[in-house]
């Protein structure tokens, strides 16, 4: 439809549509709140009580979904945070009663205790080079430990029988129903706004490609720990509500079996969507309450079978099925409006200075007995375009890795702009002004071109946690890359649909958008067409010509190297054998023998 509109009308329609879509979650939330406010009047007491519990569980499902469906952290630990919140509430209300002070203390404890535990769990789960499996394992251990501590708590925690008979908030069951509904709506709305906002893209980026996040200067570890702690606090408040509404807390509430149930509900409802897990949890828990009395084992059997089947056949859950139908309708096929590209003035601080951008002194690296690099000395100044050449296995990529990741075990010294990088994680080195492009294009497969570029700017400009910015400010050089490769017309295209060359160009644009002082490129032209190669060459020459940026590239194409380099460094068997101008190196007898294979031994 929109394609037929004249350009001016399209431009006018875009902001209007954006305003509409921004208001949509709020409108849905208000309607849901109204419906749920009236609901207790028409439902029987049993349904009101069960649904109160189901809605509290749905809040937990939202937190599991944000962690697992969006950020890619499969967690069984939300049950533990929920249990800690519920027990903190029950213990304080047992001791002080439901006085205003007691309630306030209970809320505070149900918020703070799980958040602190979440910080500790986050610290344990996420570190440089931690694996997703390890984080999941920790999330399994946490509920087990919490449950054992509850057992060990004696009178304080009621041990295996739990706590019961404490004072609670002065509400009838309708009141709790409305409170739970309100809480669920607020949490879901906040989550909805977050995942649609630019900051929400960072979660998906973490799931897609954690390494790329780090090499864009974002700190994956900090993001994951903060998310864990924040969602632990939300689970804790859910626990507060549960303790009040049910009047009883038991060790099972914190157990890992409950944690796995949450994951099952989210999987069936549809991870990576928000309404899927919310509706899935409410439906399954409500059905369970109605059916499991008559058919306890059969119900579990059906649920387990459905879970296995959904995981194998429909990983997106039931929401994915609905989503596919929706996208088949004309209204569902609307493309989002692309952000407007604007040029951003270069950072004035990045003035040329006398210190070399990169100094490498006596660098050596070995894998066990195998020496990969030895005695490397190198100095690179602003304005240089240095090509690193050498046969396969010469240590070129290893050198690039050492330059961009200070946690690699190497000996010797590497400094960026005078700052030593030993021990620094990639994101801190990006902060020093290094941008690295990988050999295999490393972008975020489930995001659009514009989102990838926005994440590249996140360490400079931040990300909005509530909305989508209408403009996308990029340095001129990044805009040039986009324009020359035609990516500026594909801003809303998901990157998984891009060609190999387009992905390489996008990654280059992302790296350039970081405004690095030193750009590291590992075979930027591998597998590209002649035209694409020329474009990349032009961009690199233009970048370094300003005299403020240096580039180091690993390259096999010697014609390309000769055309663009200001200097060539030759690596052979882990040693730096030649370092000179293009004429020096290309005319060298040594290079000829190395490449014809005569210089071994």
């Amino acid at each position, binding site marked *: 439809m929109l394609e037929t509109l004249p350009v001016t009308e399209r431009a006018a329609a875009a902001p209007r549509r954006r305003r509409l879509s921004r208001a949509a979650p709020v409108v849905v939330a208000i309607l849901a709140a109204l419906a749920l406010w009236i609901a207790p009047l028409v439902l029987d007491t049993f349904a009101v009580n069960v649904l109160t519990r189901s809605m509290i569980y749905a809040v937990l499902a939202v937190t599991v979904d944000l962690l697992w469906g969006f950020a890619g952290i499969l967690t069984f630990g939300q049950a533990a945070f929920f249990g800690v919140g519920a027990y903190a509430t029950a213990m304080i209300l047992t001791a002080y009663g439901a006085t205003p002070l007691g309630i306030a203390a209970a809320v505070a404890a149900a918020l703070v205790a799980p958040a602190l535990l979440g910080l500790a769990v986050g610290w344990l789960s996420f570190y440089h080079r931690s*694996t997703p499996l390890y984080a999941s394992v920790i999330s399994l251990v946490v509920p*087990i430990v919490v449950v054992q501590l509850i057992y060990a708590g004696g009178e304080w925690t009621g041990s295996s029988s739990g706590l019961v008979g404490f004072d609670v908030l002065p509400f009838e069951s309708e009141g709790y129903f409305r409170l739970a509904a309100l809480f669920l709506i607020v949490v879901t709305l906040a989550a909805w706004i977050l995942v649609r906002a630019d900051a929400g893209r960072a979660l998906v980026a973490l799931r897609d490609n954690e390494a790329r996040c780090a090499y864009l200067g974002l700190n994956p570890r900090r993001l994951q720990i903060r998310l864990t702690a924040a969602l632990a606090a939300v689970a804790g408040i859910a626990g507060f509500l549960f303790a009040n509404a049910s009047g009883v807390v038991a060790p099972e509430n914190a157990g890992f079996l409950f944690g796995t149930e949450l994951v099952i509900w989210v999987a069936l409802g549809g991870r990576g969507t928000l309404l899927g897990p919310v509706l899935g949890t409410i439906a399954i828990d409500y059905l369970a309450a109605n059916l499991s009395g008559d058919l306890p084992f059969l119900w579990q059997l059906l649920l*387990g079978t459905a879970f296995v089947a959904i995981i194998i056949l429909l990983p997106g859950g039931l929401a994915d099925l609905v989503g596919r139908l929706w996208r088949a309708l004309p209204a569902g096929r609307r493309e989002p409006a692309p952000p407007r590209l604007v040029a951003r003035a270069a950072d004035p601080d990045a003035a040329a200075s006398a210190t070399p951008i990169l100094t490498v002194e006596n660098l050596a690296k070995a894998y066990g007995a195998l020496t990969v690099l030895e005695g490397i000395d190198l100095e690179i100044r602003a304005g240089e375009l240095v090509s690193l050449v050498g046969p396969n296995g010469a240590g070129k990529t290893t050198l690039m890795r050492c330059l961009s990741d200070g946690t690699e075990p190497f000996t010797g010294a590497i400094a960026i702009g005078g700052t030593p990088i030993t021990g620094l994680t990639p994101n801190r080195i990006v902060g020093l002004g290094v941008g690295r492009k990988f050999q295999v294009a490393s972008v975020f497969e489930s995001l659009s071109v514009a989102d990838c570029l926005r994440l590249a700017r996140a360490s400079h400009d931040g990300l909005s946690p509530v909305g989508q910015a209408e403009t996308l400010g990029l340095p001129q050089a990044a805009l040039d890359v986009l324009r020359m490769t035609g990516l500026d017309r594909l801003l809303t295209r998901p990157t998984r649909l891009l060609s190999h060359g387009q992905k390489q160009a996008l990654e280059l644009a992302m790296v350039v958008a970081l405004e690095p002082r030193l750009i590291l490129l590992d075979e930027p032209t591998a597998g590209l067409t002649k035209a694409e190669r020329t474009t990349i060459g032009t961009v690199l020459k233009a970048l370094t010509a300003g005299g403020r940026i240096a580039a180091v590239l690993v390259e096999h194409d010697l014609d390309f190297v000769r055309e663009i380099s200001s200097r060539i460094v030759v690596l052979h068997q882990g040693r730096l054998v030649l370092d000179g101008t293009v004429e020096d190196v290309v005319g060298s007898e040594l290079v000829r023998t190395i490449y014809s294979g005569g210089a071994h031994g």
Partner: protein
Amino acid sequence: MLLTLDILTTAAILFIVSIGLLAIFGVLKIINFAHGAWLTVGAYCAVVTAKLGLNPWLALPLAFAVGAALGGLAEHFIIRPLYRRPLDAILATWGLGIVVGQLITLAFGRDVQLTPNLLAGTVEILGVDYSAYRLVALGIALAIGTLFALTIERTRLGLSARAVIMNETLARSLGIDTGRVRLVVFMIGAGFAALAGVLLTPLTSVDPNMGVAWLIGAFMLVMVADASYLALAAACLVFGAAQVLISTFVSPILGSIAIAVLAALVLRISPKGFSRA
């Protein structure tokens, strides 16, 4: 002395329970959450053997056969389609565990089952009376470990399995039928788990959820061992000792979480666990 025996036999039992999980983790690179279910299946094989009035030791071959057969089905229909989604494969095995547990409940009821003792009585060893069965378990663990080592080091299957563990893509391009290796290893792993279930019957009550209690401990030991059976033996000894000592001298409740907590910390400090040593 009693303490030493406790530590050795606890380590032996942990080893018996974890070895099947280790085989699967090494080759398929997934943690098999259905492991608890295989243990339970094995224990119920002992129940069935007893009901049929057969020699209780006959439960061992029966459990291995049933476990391997079920494992084969599970690998073919559940694990294989999820080959490229390892975290999903883990979840699917958990779902499978639920299904198996419920099927057992439907067939046998929820109650605790009684099984005949495989070996009753005590033996006097170095001045203390000690459960004969636990000593036999120690011997069985050594036998299983040796059998496992011989299979890995001396047979064609073991060679293929090691190749797949090191580099599956390369193994496949060398003409090793990696799909078959995965299937066979999963069957053997499930068979060993069921076997372990039979061996657990004298030590623990048999009910449909018995496997879950053993799952996490086995899980953590295997994570720490990282696909090496020698590292697994070492991990069983160290963490088994920690469990026994903490249970004896501090509190049984803390002892019960000792393995999980200590293993998690070890992995945090050294992600490769015990396999580097």
